[in-house]
């Protein structure tokens, strides 16, 4: 029981990432009808926003400390970040340590611009083209984006630590009546899950309770009629694309401490996220979120040693296996709408 609970918790953080990326993919697909293979690259750019901000904040000048010497007897060179000079050593250090949460603020405008430029510059010309063309051009774009990132940040993963305040683990088990130290869970993963839930809730609330969201939902149902009513739906859909890019970017920013960002992390997540979207049902926002958490949790349950004993290798293939079964038994995925993506 404890082991299962622990695995469910472990699955939640990966599931959160899947759900956030899949949500963005579905937003784009539902509004623009475009299959965006570059969405994983947006996730990766988000993670590198965190890396970039922590690099910028660590930008330092070198001073020579005469009072101390290094092992050769020369005066020691000490690197002092500029933030220490500007805000004093204490506040400066705190800011550096909190670079990942601060990167949330930094990444939103960046992702917004990236998303906006991408939609206006490229995707817009592909509305009327076949889905295969959309997949291919965004696939090409993903290659280009990740190569650019690789050029500037190198091919190795870059560790980006979470603030030290969240470095420890949290005893979840003790909270709900199990023995202490049985179910412990890193703080940051808990935060990631809460953060993902917050974002997902915000997106749904935005679509459900604002006039803008109302128009967008109407446009998702029947674009032509909304256009005939004199609403510039394209402009709003562009905004939705930018929002989807921000969602993917934020998912990436917060994921940086869990998994050191490297340039191909986006592609690794993209393949799985597509499986998630399809399992959830193309065009269904709720389905995408549900399937994201479901597959994340299933994946981590399948990697329990008791399960592997009976079904060796199941942890590697469970997601794909579930995807195949669901697609064959429920042709439109878990919550797919009728008439979406069916020739």
């Amino acid at each position, binding site marked *: 029981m404890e082991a299962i609970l622990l695995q469910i918790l472990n699955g939640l953080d990966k599931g959160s990432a899947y759900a956030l990326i899949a949500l963005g993919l579905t937003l784009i697909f539902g509004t623009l009808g475009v*299959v965006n293979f570059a969405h994983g690259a947006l996730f990766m750019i988000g993670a590198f926003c965190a890396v970039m901000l922590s690099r910028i904040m660590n930008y330092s000048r070198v001073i020579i400390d005469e009072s101390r010497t290094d092992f050769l007897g020369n005066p020691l060179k000490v690197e002092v970040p500029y933030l220490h000079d500007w805000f004093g050593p204490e506040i400066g250090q705190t800011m550096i340590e909190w670079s990942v949460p601060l990167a949330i603020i930094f990444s939103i405008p960046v992702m917004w611009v990236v998303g906006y430029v991408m939609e206006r510059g490229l995707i817009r010309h592909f509305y009327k083209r*076949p*889905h*295969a063309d959309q997949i291919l051009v965004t696939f090409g774009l993903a290659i280009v984006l990740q190569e650019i990132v*690789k050029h500037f940040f190198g091919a190795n993963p870059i560790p980006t630590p979470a603030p030290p305040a969240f470095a420890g683990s949290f005893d979840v088990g003790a909270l709900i009546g199990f023995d202490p130290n049985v179910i412990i869970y890193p703080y940051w993963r808990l935060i990631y899950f809460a953060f993902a839930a917050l974002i997902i809730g915000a997106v749904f609330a935005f679509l459900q309770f604002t006039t803008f969201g109302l128009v967008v939902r109407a446009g998702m149902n029947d674009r032509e009629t909304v256009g005939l009513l004199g609403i510039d739906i394209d402009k709003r859909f562009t905004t939705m694309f930018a929002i989807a890019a921000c969602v993917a970017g934020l998912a990436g920013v917060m994921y940086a401490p869990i998994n050191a960002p490297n340039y191909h992390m986006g592609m690794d997540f993209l393949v799985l996220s597509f499986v998630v979207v399809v399992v959830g049902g193309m065009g269904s926002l709720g389905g995408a979120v549900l399937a994201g958490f479901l597959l994340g949790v299933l994946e981590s349950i399948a990697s329990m040693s008791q399960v592997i004993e009976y079904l060796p290798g199941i942890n*590697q293939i469970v997601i*794909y296996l579930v995807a195949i079964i669901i*697609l*064959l038994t429920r042709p439109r995925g878990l919550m797919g709408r009728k008439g979406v993506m069916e*020739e």
Partner: protein
Amino acid sequence: MFGLNRGDTLLLLLVAILTALAPFLLNPFPEGSSLAQFNGGYPDLMQRFVIFGIFAIGFNILFGLTGYLSFGHAAFLGVGSYAAIWMMKLLTMNVIPAIILSVIVAGLFSLLVGYISLRRSGIYFSILTLAFAQMSYALAYSVLTPITGGETGLQPKLSDPRVLDTMLGADGTSRANLFGLEMGQSWQMDWNGWVFTFNTGYYVAAFVMLIAFYLSIRIFRSPFGLMLRAVKTNQNRLNYTGVNTKPYTLAAFVISGMYAGLAGGLLVAMDTQVGPERMFWTASGEVVLMTILGGVGTLIGPVLGAGLIKYMENILSKINEGLLEKWFAFMPETAGDIVVTVLALFTGKGWHLTLGLIFMLVVIFLPGGLVGGLIQGGRRMFRTGDRSADRKVKSNQTPPTSTPVE
């Protein structure tokens, strides 16, 4: 000739001549000159040209004719490779049984995958094939290690039984061969500084590719091929007229799977080793790139695309910064530095960037791929017919595989 019309015969002959003369054509620069970098005429690369050509030709039979975009074709290539290496370990180092078995095994595997995946179309089909390929990759990496060798992969070893070889009295030291003719054997011709290499393995693979190419022309021109095109244009309409399309699409899927298996078997025949990374989804993505780059649904396009990508992978990636500096040493220092810095972005380790950019440009501006673009450009230049002919070509090259969701 061979049941082809005049144009196709000419195309086949042209391809045959080009592949036969490839050691000359791909080595246009003398050895030791500064441009020798760009020579693609060494055996390893030439073998890859034709083998991946076969892979792309097969993929084109599925994607080009039926419009079903498979994202898991590397699985068949990998399965074919494993079958071939086992044949070499157990039976004989002769490549013929290895290649035959790889085609059969890949065919059976694609029958299974195709039977299940073809129940869906569009992106659902793509995801299903992707799921199968990723599953094969993950299993080859982990649980199936006794069969696949896991991470290290498989190579022939001295201790392998090789029943047929032992019966014929050979010891375990033999290499991959065709009735004694070793695949790795090369013969070099030196002519005034130009060095041309003729490799047995290349010619064996090229011969197989010509057969594969011929078969693909026959399929394209057959009533079966016409039926597949009808599936691409409008599957619903076919179903309404009472045609069951499943056997046709399944046959196309299996044929293209067998082509992939053939390519996998040949890869093993050339350098006797195989690892699971051959089945990773990026490998499946690569064959999609090749086909699109060259021209979907054209006969020669996939071969060109495969050649171009493999050439870039091997030649462009070799150009490093030091070499660039040498080339642009004649320029003033600052200007030279700028040029080198910019070009270094696109060459060496950054060759993927060039690939991505070229690929995007092709998809955006030349939906018919390079071959489609050439045909279009040719028509525009020598406009003989009226405008409607031009439009007809255009609509032939980009038939809607699906209607975008509004």
